[in-house]
């Protein structure tokens, strides 16, 4: 309890508050502007986090970018039918329909209130459950970590968007890339091709900045559609009591769905907004309303994505396993600041742990206060042409990469990864699983090898150990799910011709 209250003292420091404010503002901004997602923005900001120096401020800022983006993404979904964030895509259906009926303000107001409720309830649950999970996991040894990291990589690959086989290939290549450099056990050089720089290993900040940041910048350059968007005018943000009454149950359900899906690796904000919307439509007595301006259709996904954004901090802060690409960037930020996220974090570094958790209470209040009255300003920001922002982000990225080690080697390596990421998207491969697997790669390899030494070379040890055995059983279930689903679908519809999607599901 003391540590918890101390956390607020940490947040109340002017420096931390300032970085929290900067973080949520940047988050909201990139949420509003279609193009860069939160993971890419966090990747680009990594060098700046390093130069801030203070781990708490840095991580508080990065966290703010992530949950701030969930608020911002709504605005463009409602006003422009252009989701600023992947997690606000379903909001487009009913949000834009409401905007066309002149109720854009109501949609935005409900979304902001739902977001705040979802996030805040989720933080309370996080504050209560995280120390318990961490306490339980603190005795984890190499086999448990190996199993957990493996499950994380698999879940991110199969649940996330994109074809599962392609995602698994990308993840495996990420794991392979993580082996570049000097082997920690034997000192042997692997995949370095005689390069001195490569023998130090590839810096994950460089990989993330390239695959997320540079590739998205290049992608946007190609996809850009010249003219600025002119959004509808917004009036009457405060929703009426009747609207709130309709939205309240959806907000409640969205919070629950978001919290639980957010904790799952690979779940996160995108998945939970879809699931919350689907649930509302499924249990509704009037499902035909959805897509034509249902308040519930805005409230549920917007609540769920914020609840999930918050709860996805749990696996990172308690187990040291990032649940999605944005959490992988936070993980990277902690590592470059010299802190390895693990179950011991809450005990060894209570200021950081509670500082970050409690900054989310503060950040969400700031976001609620900003998002309702400042909607007009954010709407005006939408008029800034993407062409003007592109070189600014490009410069931040390159100069940032240089400052990591004051070397142009990093810059060129980042550009190379940027081109790889761009080409991957062309071929239908998502770079997300590759980055996440790369970040987890060293943990996974080291723990597998340590476990094998502990088990004296007997790989069945992983299964015999109760905890890692359970985790691996979950692994098998996740791996088998797409196959089982395809078979089930085929049995359900034996008469219809099999569409391509079925092949894709295998």
């Amino acid at each position, binding site marked *: 309890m003391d540590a918890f209250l101390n956390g607020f003292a940490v947040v109340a420091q002017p420096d931390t508050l300032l970085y929290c404010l900067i973080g949520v503002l940047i988050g909201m901004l990139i949420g509003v502007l279609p193009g860069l997602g939160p993971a890419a923005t966090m990747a680009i900001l990594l060098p700046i986090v390093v130069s801030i120096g203070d781990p708490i401020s840095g991580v508080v800022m990065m966290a703010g970018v992530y949950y701030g983006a969930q608020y911002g993404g709504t605005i463009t979904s409602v006003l422009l039918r252009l989701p600023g964030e992947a997690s606000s895509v379903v909001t487009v259906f009913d949000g834009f329909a409401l905007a066309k009926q002149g109720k854009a303000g109501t949609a935005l107001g409900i979304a902001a209130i739902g977001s705040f409720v979802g996030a805040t309830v989720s933080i309370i649950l996080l504050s209560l459950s995280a120390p318990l999970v961490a306490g339980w996991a603190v005795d984890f040894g190499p086999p448990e970590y190996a199993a957990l990291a493996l499950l994380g990589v698999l879940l991110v690959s199969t649940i996330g968007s994109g074809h599962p086989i*392609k995602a698994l290939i990308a993840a495996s290549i990420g794991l392979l890339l993580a*082996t570049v450099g000097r082997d920690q056990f034997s000192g042997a050089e692997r995949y370095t091709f005689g390069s001195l720089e490569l023998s130090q290993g590839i810096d994950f900040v460089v990989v993330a900045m390239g695959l997320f940041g540079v590739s998205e910048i290049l992608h946007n350059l190609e*996809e850009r559609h010249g003219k600025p968007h002119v959004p509808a005018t917004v009036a009457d943000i405060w929703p009426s009591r009747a609207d709130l009454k309709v939205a309240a149950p959806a907000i409640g359900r969205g919070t629950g769905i978001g919290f639980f899906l957010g904790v799952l690796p690979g779940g996160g904000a995108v998945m939970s907004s879809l699931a919350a919307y689907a649930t509302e439509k499924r249990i509704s007595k009037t499902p035909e309303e959805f897509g034509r301006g249902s308040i519930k259709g805005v409230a549920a996904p917007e609540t769920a994505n914020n609840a999930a954004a918050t709860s996805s901090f749990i696996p990172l802060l308690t187990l040291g396993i990032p649940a999605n690409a944005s959490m992988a960037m936070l993980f990277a930020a902690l590592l470059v600041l010299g802190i390895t996220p693990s179950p011991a974090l809450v005990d060894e570094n209570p200021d950081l742990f509670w500082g970050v958790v409690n900054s989310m209470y503060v950040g969400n209040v700031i976001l609620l206060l900003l998002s309702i009255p400042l909607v007009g300003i954010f709407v005006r920001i939408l008029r800034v042409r993407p062409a003007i922002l*592109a070189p*600014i982000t490009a410069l931040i990225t390159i*100069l940032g990469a240089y400052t990591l080690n004051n070397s142009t080697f990093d810059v060129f390596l980042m550009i190379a990864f940027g081109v790889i990421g761009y080409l991957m998207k062309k*071929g239908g491969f998502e770079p997300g699983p590759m980055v996440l697997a790369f970040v987890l790669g060293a943990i996974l390899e080291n723990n597998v090898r340590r476990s094998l030494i502990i088990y004296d070379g007997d790989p069945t040890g992983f299964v015999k150990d109760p905890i890692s055995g359970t985790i691996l059983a979950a692994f098998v279930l996740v791996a088998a799910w797409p196959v089982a689903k395809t078979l089930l679908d085929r049995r359900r519809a034996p008469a219809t011709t099999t569409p391509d999607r079925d092949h894709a599901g295998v």
Partner: protein
Amino acid sequence: MSDERTARGGPDILDEIEAEVAETLSEDDLPPGGPVYQTVGALVALAIGIAGLVLALDYGLDGLRRPGPGLWPFVMSLVITVLSLVLLVVGRRLEDSVSFSRSSLLPAVGVLTFIGLGVLMPLIGFEIPSLVLCVIWLRFLGGESWRSTVLVSVGTVAVFYVLFLYGLSIPLPHLLAF
């Protein structure tokens, strides 16, 4: 989840919404690339897998009791190789690739300006190359007017100068010293 269907008895609602989402997102996108893109993608992955395998053998696998430096990369490369072969067979008709077009030249020019900045920055400082990058991106890649190009370029470089050298005290190579 088995009995929860839509009123019309169609497929699962979640699948339906996901399809709708994909459609919303893809409206403005370039068309998919087709089987050639899929095959090339799978072949590149296959090549990475095989190269990884060959090199890993060189590093030494040893046994499970004392895993050698090559064992883990060998297993990963094996997974890549097998999955790429599967993808080569089942993935031909996927539609998740994005075709190249004339506007793919824009990112190509963008990459060249990135490389140029990387090469020139240690030699002549970051100011002039950054300015040139901004001008190319704004005027030629972005189609901005000369007026806004000049204003935004000079403004951006000036802000970055102050931000990096004074705000964050990061010693970027620079030409101007005050």
